[in-house]
């Protein structure tokens, strides 16, 4: 400001300048004040208009949910889950306590849909009401359902555990009094996964919403048409799609997990993959683990892995359980490692199928892209490949598999980088496209044909897809890669089994590299094929058809035979490349290992159902499954566990509302996310602008009037 030679400055005394600045500030402040007052006036006016329009009219309105599938608008019972696992050898016995608390002032019936591990054999149900414990009993599914409904009508407390899918169960609990707490405890047993020298156990804690194709839905809705729906709501009550909470409102269903691990041999590594755990080591290679931050939010699956010290694991192990006139056996055998022949690389024809449906939105699609780009890296000249993308529609990159070269790879990378997730999950057309037989018989026949399938498996028509894989697989191998925080692992492991490949689960984008490398080792080394298990003395062996084994995988079979008859050796044999492999394992019926019988029964039911998927008549399958499930007290597609209180607690004149318990949205998934604002400020801006202009005009017009008016007032 201060140039001393400035004539203007010198001409202006300091007081004048101060005056001027004050004047400016005053005018700006006055302008702002007027604008604010105006804005306020407009807002008040609009809010009033708004209240007037929002009043009762021709539309239904209010905080009624547009749709959360169950018609939930009553407060759901609160749920606290307590999981206790005890692991011995190859078997895990797990107790899941679901504590239901009714926070409402009226009676409730809670329905909770939850995932369990794929091989879970649920064989126990207890209902704890205060001090009393009521044991559940097994019954045919419809009988159990009738018994439950009847007890519910009478006002007794009752609980029913049903199986919706191999890895998806429902607990129904009727007549929970206001403020009351009821514990439903279920127990199941499962075999552990052993792969590449490590054991692992996965406990699913989240449920990725599944896509149910239209045609399938119709029949399901018809068969399950008992659900009461408020009039006017979308009638899509679907048993395998639970309601979800809005992640912005915090999470529900806290879970605590404790584990007793009796490893039986020294461990070189023990770790939980996605959650922090506290480990307490005890003598005799026993470990006690619990989650560090208890309870946790059920938003992603729990996985525990442990690795025995090298050499401490026997090549084969046999566990038996004798129950009356039947003896059950579990055989675990580790075929020797691949020979040096594995270095010879067979050219491959690989078709990658990638799921870009809406349920993959968020972290899943990022993992999938990452994994696919890695897979492209591993292709070598001489290989052929193709990529098929699918959501509601199927989009192949090339019409047929093409040879690997710089151009095709570049196109593939561009294609993969541009993948985004939206739309439905129409899996069948994509698999059909990948499994069409258009090969030229001569040159291509030397290729090892593989299909690598990346998906979260969020489908409801599993059986239909499995049937297709079974029919069309030919000499191909199908490898499934489960993506995201909570994929449908039952479906994917089963698809891999039908396709004689393997299932890999990638739960975190940081794991992509390790897990994909492990998978590539499998893809590139020959598998042990044509495996046969010869058990002496007419034993019933499950699974009947042993899947191919890849490097580091053990052979796991169960058998049942009349007590005392099974003696001699089990003969195992198979082929790896051109070489044959065989071994004899003596049958020694040792100390009874509890739980082996249940494992056999579960494996038996699964192979019966597989036979059904491959075309055996449903009625026969059903009868056979009922035979096994009822004897072994197992929940299955055709049997449920039900427990009924002897005393009547709810009087007939009060009602109990049926409410589905909500789930958390699996971590990182975005498709259930929020909505944008659906109005622009255009109108507000225009109204404000015109008001300001009008006012400015008024002021300018009345400019001369004011001083005169002020003078007049003073006079």
């Amino acid at each position: 400001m201060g140039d001393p030679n400035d004539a203007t400055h010198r001409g202006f005394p300091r007081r004048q300048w101060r005056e001027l600045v004050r004047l400016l500030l005053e005018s700006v402040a006055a302008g702002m004040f007027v604008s604010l007052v105006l804005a306020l006036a407009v807002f008040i006016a609009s809010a009033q208009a708004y209240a007037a329009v929002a009043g009762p009219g021709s539309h239904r309105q209010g905080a009624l949910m547009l749709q959360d599938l169950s018609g939930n608008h009553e407060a759901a019972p609160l749920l606290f889950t307590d999981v206790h696992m005890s692991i011995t050898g190859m078997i895990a016995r797990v107790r899941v306590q679901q504590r239901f608390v009714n926070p409402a002032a009226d009676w409730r019936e809670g329905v909770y849909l939850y995932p369990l591990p794929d091989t879970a054999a649920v064989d126990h149900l207890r209902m704890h009401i205060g001090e009393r414990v009521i044991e559940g009993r097994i019954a045919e599914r419809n009988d159990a359902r009738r018994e439950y409904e009847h007890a519910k009508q009478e006002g007794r407390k009752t609980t029913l555990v049903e199986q919706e899918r191999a890895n998806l169960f429902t607990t129904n609990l009727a007549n929970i009094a206001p403020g009351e707490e009821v514990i439903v405890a279920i127990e199941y047993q499962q075999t552990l996964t052993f792969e590449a020298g490590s054991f692992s156990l996965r406990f699913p804690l989240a449920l990725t919403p599944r896509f149910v194709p239209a045609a399938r839905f119709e029949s399901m809705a018809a068969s399950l048409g008992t659900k009461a729906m408020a009039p006017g709501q979308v009638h899509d009550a679907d048993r395998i799609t639970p309601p979800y909470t809005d992640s912005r409102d915090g999470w529900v269903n806290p879970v605590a997990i404790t584990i007793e691990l009796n490893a039986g041999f020294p461990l070189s590594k023990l770790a939980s993959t996605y959650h922090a755990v506290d480990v307490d080591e005890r003598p005799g290679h026993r470990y006690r683990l619990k989650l560090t931050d208890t309870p946790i939010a059920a938003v992603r699956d729990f996985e525990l892995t442990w690795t025995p010290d090298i050499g401490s694991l026997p090549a084969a192990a046999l566990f038996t359980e004798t129950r009356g006139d039947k003896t059950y056996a579990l055989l675990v055998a580790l075929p020797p490692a691949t020979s040096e022949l594995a270095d010879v690389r067979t050219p491959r024809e690989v078709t990658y199928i990638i799921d870009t449906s809406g349920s993959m939105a968020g972290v899943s699609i990022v993992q999938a892209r990452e994994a696919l780009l890695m897979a492209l890296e591993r292709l070598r000249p001489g290989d052929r490949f193709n990529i098929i993308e699918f959501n509601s529609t199927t989009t192949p990159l090339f019409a047929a598999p093409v040879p690997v070269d710089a151009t095709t790879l570049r196109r593939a990378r561009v294609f993969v980088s541009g993948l985004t997730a939206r739309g439905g999950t129409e899996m069948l057309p994509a698999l059909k496209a990948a499994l069409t037989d258009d090969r030229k018989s001569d040159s291509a026949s030397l290729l090892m044909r593989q299909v690598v399938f990346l998906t979260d498996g969020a489908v409801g028509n599993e059986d239909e897809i499995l049937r297709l894989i079974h029919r069309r697989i030919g000499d191909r191998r199908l490898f499934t890669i489960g993506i995201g925080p909570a994929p449908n692992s039952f479906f994917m492991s089963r698809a891999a089994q039908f396709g004689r490949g393997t299932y890999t689960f990638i739960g975190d984008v940081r794991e992509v590299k390790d897990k994909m490398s492990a998978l590539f080792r499998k893809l590139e080394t020959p598998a042990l094929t044509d495996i046969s298990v010869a058990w002496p003395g007419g034993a019933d062996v499950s699974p009947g058809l042993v899947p191919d084994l890849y490097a580091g995988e053990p052979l796991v079979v169960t058998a049942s035979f009349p007590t005392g008859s099974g003696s001699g050796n089990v003969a195992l044999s198979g082929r790896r490349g051109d070489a044959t492999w065989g071994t004899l394992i003596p049958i020694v019926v040792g100390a009874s290992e509890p739980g082996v019988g249940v494992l056999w029964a579960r494996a038996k039911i699964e192979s019966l159902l597989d036979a059904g998927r491959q075309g055996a008549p449903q009625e026969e399958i059903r009868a056979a499954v009922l035979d096994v499930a009822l004897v072994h007290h197992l929940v299955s597609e055709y049997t449920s566990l039900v427990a009924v209180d002897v005393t009547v607690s709810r009087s007939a004149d009060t009602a109990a509302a049926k409410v589905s318990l909500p789930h958390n949205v699996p971590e990182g998934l975005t498709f259930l996310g929020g909505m944008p604002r659906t109005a622009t400020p255009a109108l507000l801006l225009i109204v404000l602008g015109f008001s300001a202009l009008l006012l400015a005009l008024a002021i300018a017009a009345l400019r001369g009037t004011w001083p005169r008016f002020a003078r007049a007032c003073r006079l």
Partner: protein
Amino acid sequence: MRHVVADRGGPIGRNVTSNRNWMGRLRPGIAVRAAPAESSPIGDSARHWTEDKPLPRRRITRRFAVLACAAFLGAAGIASVGHGAYILAKAELAQWLLHAAWSRTQATGLPAKPWPWADTHPVARLIAADQDADLLVLAGASGRTLAFGPGHLDGSALPGDSGNAVLTAHRDTHFRFLQHVAVGDPIAVESPRGGRRHFRIRELRIVDQSALKFVRDTRVPTLTLVTCYPFNAINPGGPLRYVVIAEAA
């Protein structure tokens, strides 16, 4: 600049008013004349006024404040109206560019960007013939895409496919027509492959935003159109949503 300020603070009076327009702004001729500093007649006159014949101070202050106020309001008003008009014009204009991109998409079968720097592309065309509405739906329902057209919520089914397609748009631009639709009205959706699917409105609903949840998989192909409610509210941030559910006919 300083000269102009000095000028404003100085001879505001009967003798100079003729050099100003109605908003108190200098006419161009005066501004040019005020530029040379040394011989500025304004500087001289200012000294003259302040030293010899001080003005009644309160009068100047009032006058100046009133004029500044009017100028400020006028400028803010023009800017505000301009911005509002720009939002509406952009929404209208973008649809023209989108139609061009849509014909490219239909010709090639590949997503086409409507303008080179766009981060979205049209995924479907929504036609409500009764309402004279012909809109191109953009991928993604973010505030950015909604400025140009209705947005398709990622993760919902694609319009016309089985499942529930959720489309949102502003109530005062693209989905303004929704206030006139009634149950039973037809709506058509054109897919990138050119096929049209016809829908009929099954339900109209007003819900609170916090209670808004969508069915992911519906029996029949379904369109769920969401916009703000009420339609003529001035305040853009209201909690209510107007939901139109249409099912494949």
